[in-house]
């Protein structure tokens, strides 16, 4: 099975928006009204407190990228939009997962976390919570490898991205 993040119809757009109330609702509302699909979404302030950055991964099966960008650009609170081609972008995502880890397999999981340069952030009697940051495809691989041990809970942030220098 091909990992979702590797799919070719997904594109990353980085949208600089005014940091005002309701802006996320406008962006999300536009996506749903125009029939565009959001694959993942991350929102956070930038170094300039007037602006926030929305990093959206969009599913291009639903509409041409150009049309999505044009429609987004019509929103008054949208300042600028960059399409980040995967080859020109630094992408990262964060993963938190609680994995079943009875005594006999705990060592294997810790080893795996070590290989992926993750961290053990919480330890229970029969489970571990691990944290891993990195490229989304790396997170996909890690997720696949820990799945056989039994994932109790998993949460990913959605990717953030910046242009390569």
């Amino acid at each position: 099975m091909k990992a979702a993040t590797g799919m070719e119809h997904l594109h990353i757009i980085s949208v600089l928006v005014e940091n005002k109330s309701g802006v996320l609702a406008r962006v999300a509302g536009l996506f749903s009204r125009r029939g565009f699909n959001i694959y993942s979404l991350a929102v956070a302030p930038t170094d300039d407190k007037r602006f926030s950055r929305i990093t959206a991964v969009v599913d291009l099966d639903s509409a041409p990228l150009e049309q999505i960008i044009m429609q987004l650009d019509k929103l008054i609170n949208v300042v600028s939009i960059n399409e980040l081609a995967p080859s020109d972008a630094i992408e990262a995502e964060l993963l938190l997962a609680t994995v079943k880890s009875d005594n006999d397999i705990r060592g294997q999981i810790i080893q795996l976390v070590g290989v992926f340069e993750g961290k053990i952030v919480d330890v229970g009697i029969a489970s571990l919570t691990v944290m891993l940051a990195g490229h989304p495809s790396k997170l996909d691989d890690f997720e696949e490898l820990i799945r056989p041990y039994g994932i109790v809970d998993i949460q990913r942030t959605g990717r953030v991205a910046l242009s390569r220098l």
Partner: protein
Amino acid sequence: MQITGAQALVKSLEMEGVEVVFGMPGGAILPVYDPMLDTSIRHILVRHEQGAGHAAEGYAHATGRPGVAIVTSGPAATNIVTALADAYMDSIPLVVITGQVARPYIGTDAFQESDTTGITMGVTKHNWLVTDPNDIPEVVAAAFYIATTGRPGPVLIDLPKDVSNAMMEWHWPESVDELDLPGYHPATTVDQDIIEQAVDLICNSERPVMYVGGGVIKSNASDELLELAEMTGIPVVTTLMARSAFPSAHPLSLGMPGMHGNYTAVTAMQRSDLLISLGARFDDRVTGRVDAFAPEAKVIHVDIDPAELGKIRRPDVAICGDCKPVIEELIHGLKRRDVSGGIDDGNYRVTSRRDISPWLSTIHGWQERYPLIYHQSKEGELLKPQMVIETLRELTPDDTILVTGVGQHQMWASMFWKFKMPRTFVTSGGLGTMGFAVPAAIGAKVGHPERMVWAIDGDGCFQMTAQELVTAAAEGIPVKIAILNNAYLGMVRQWQELFYDERYSEVYLSPDLPDYVKWAEAMGCVGMRVDSPNDVAPVIEKANSIDDRPVVIDFRTDAFEKVYPMVPAGASNDDIILFPGQEEYASGVKEAGSSDSMADSKDEAGASGAGITEAGEGKVESR
């Protein structure tokens, strides 16, 4: 100077040059209505908030200036949503101000609270919830700037009651540069290279058509369009939103395209090798099945909204800009090359442009063979709606503003009315809002009190917003309403007849319930009824002579009459359905082969009761 937020709002409207607002007070907007007593801005008290919205739209359509409406929170705000959606679809500049519950109550499900900015987000160009009275001047200035620049559209300002009551220090932004709008940059300049590419396509085309949309009206570019058409000889189709952009009687006018377009306009686009789209958006009602639309045509697409370029049809040359300067640039570009081929050959010399005269004669042949036609009613039959519209046009001044609702009457009005000046057709296009006509006519008349304003309305439409005639009577706004009363939801009936095996489901309305004459009189209007063809002209003339009250005429029309031609929804424009019997008429023309014989065939048709009028050519033949 310390003043209240409400005073600041009214003062800001004055600063924007607002001369009239349409509205209705209520709890949350009460503070704003107090300073309304002290302003020179005229307030027109409507009977329903939807009426305020459509009246503001009618005003904006007819004048080009933004329409303004003020209503309260909750149900008033939701009542005006239809007008916002209508204005959004048809790019009408509108500034709507709604009251909101006081800030501490927002989010508590307070009395008459609604999430107005949330509800209207998808039907406005932008909206604001004002949370600080000091923001009011900038928000109002930004609202007018955004509503009227770029692609025009409606905006909404939601004003909590305590913000209206709070004190603020009055100030006014000197220019739009002071407004904090880092994400709003409407298109301004056009690249010369792109103009040259467009000129290349025009010069190399043999079957060009200008596909003119509402953007030409918004841009006030009718004169430039006329110059471009006459200079190049390229025929012009005008969409529903652009019917008044080009004179119907002009030899290059092909009339309306689309689902109820005439044969020539539809077919000229289908066979075209170059569509010059000016302020039009390839709406589904124009294109029919998109992949079968104008299959051989290259496309020059001019639109001020970059998102329209390539949204439906990929253009060969995309020009993002305002129609007026872009058309001027195209004219300059063509003049530089010293090419024309236009009908005004005296001024221009053809050098390298392709000859389009075979194309023009093909088009002329279609016009002769497939004019818009209808049958006159026989003795004792109900009126033909087309005949009422043609008679009305003949008896009204050139600058009359025509307003319509939505449905069959709207299509007939668009087809059979002879447009002579821009901004004389006010109609609901994109949203297709039944009930638009009466309030929009009021708005148009307020904008142009010196001009005659006629609404052609359906009986179904009229019942949706007729209460605004009380507004018109009370405020002394003498609009005239021609109800084409066929006792049915006519367009729905037509679809049920054609596509649902004549199974008529919930479309009968009754011609007598309500009694339109009594209803008109009860609302302070003059009411008249016409059921004989001989009375049509005299009653219209009587209505034209009344200028102190609104007039309503109940024209009893034939419910069997259908709007033809028609392209069924989702079909290709090649599958156009003509008026029944038109093929025979056309073959008669073909056999006769000369214009004299064509007149003969018309006489024959006349003997059997057929009335004939040219499609978009303005030649109203005797019947």
